[in-house]
């Protein structure tokens, strides 16, 4: 489970550079498919890793499905050595992706992001075409089952823009 607003505002307050991806992004675009975690793609520059690491420590991030006695500290160095992480935090389930299958890194997708206002703040959200590519590349049943609706929404949006 995830506290979406609180998590977004927390990361923003810590000046973390990130893009909303995954199911929350799909919902922002209009999907009706539920999700129970927040997926973000994060910038991997040294300054952002430092900010993100400090933020994760403050919300007591632990690796999901890892043995409880496994030594782990989600600091900048850990983030630098890894790429994609699935965390439980005080704010809920948070997945961090340094690279998104099918679309690439933060730098690859940030230029095509849409900016969306949520709760009085502006957030970068993966574009719908990129989200579709990512879900197709992920290839899991839940990703593939989301595709027909997302493609219909994209078709609707493009028709809307053309008229």
């Amino acid at each position, binding site marked *: 489970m995830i506290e979406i607003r609180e998590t977004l505002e927390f990361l923003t307050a810590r000046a973390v550079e990130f893009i909303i991806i995954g199911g929350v992004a799909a919902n922002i675009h209009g999907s009706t498919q539920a999700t129970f975690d927040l997926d973000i793609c994060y910038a991997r520059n040294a300054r952002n890793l430092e900010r993100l690491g400090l933020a994760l420590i403050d919300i007591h991030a632990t690796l999901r499905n890892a043995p409880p006695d496994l030594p782990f500290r989600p600091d900048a160095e850990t983030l630098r050595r890894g790429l994609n992480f699935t965390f439980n935090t005080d704010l809920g389930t948070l997945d961090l992706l340094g690279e998104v299958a099918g679309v690439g890194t933060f730098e690859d997708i940030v230029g095509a992001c849409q900016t969306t206002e*949520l709760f009085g703040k502006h957030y970068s959200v993966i574009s719908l075409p990129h989200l579709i590519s990512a879900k197709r590349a992920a290839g899991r049943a839940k990703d593939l089952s989301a595709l027909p609706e997302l493609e*219909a929404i994209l078709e609707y949006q493009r028709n809307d823009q053309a008229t």
Partner: protein
Amino acid sequence: MTKDKEELLRNPKPGTKAAAAREFGIDLTLTIERLRRTPEQRIRDLQSYINDIEKLRAGLKSRTS
């Protein structure tokens, strides 16, 4: 989202992505409802759903323990 635009999803033409989604089993009337709402309203709806599920899970857990 105008009524005319909604028709693209309510009565999709054969061969369109909307038609494929409907054939896949997506209830596009729900999608239309979702698209009428703002992104913030969509996230509020999602959070409300998440919270409801959490309450249900907690209730089931307390009944079985």
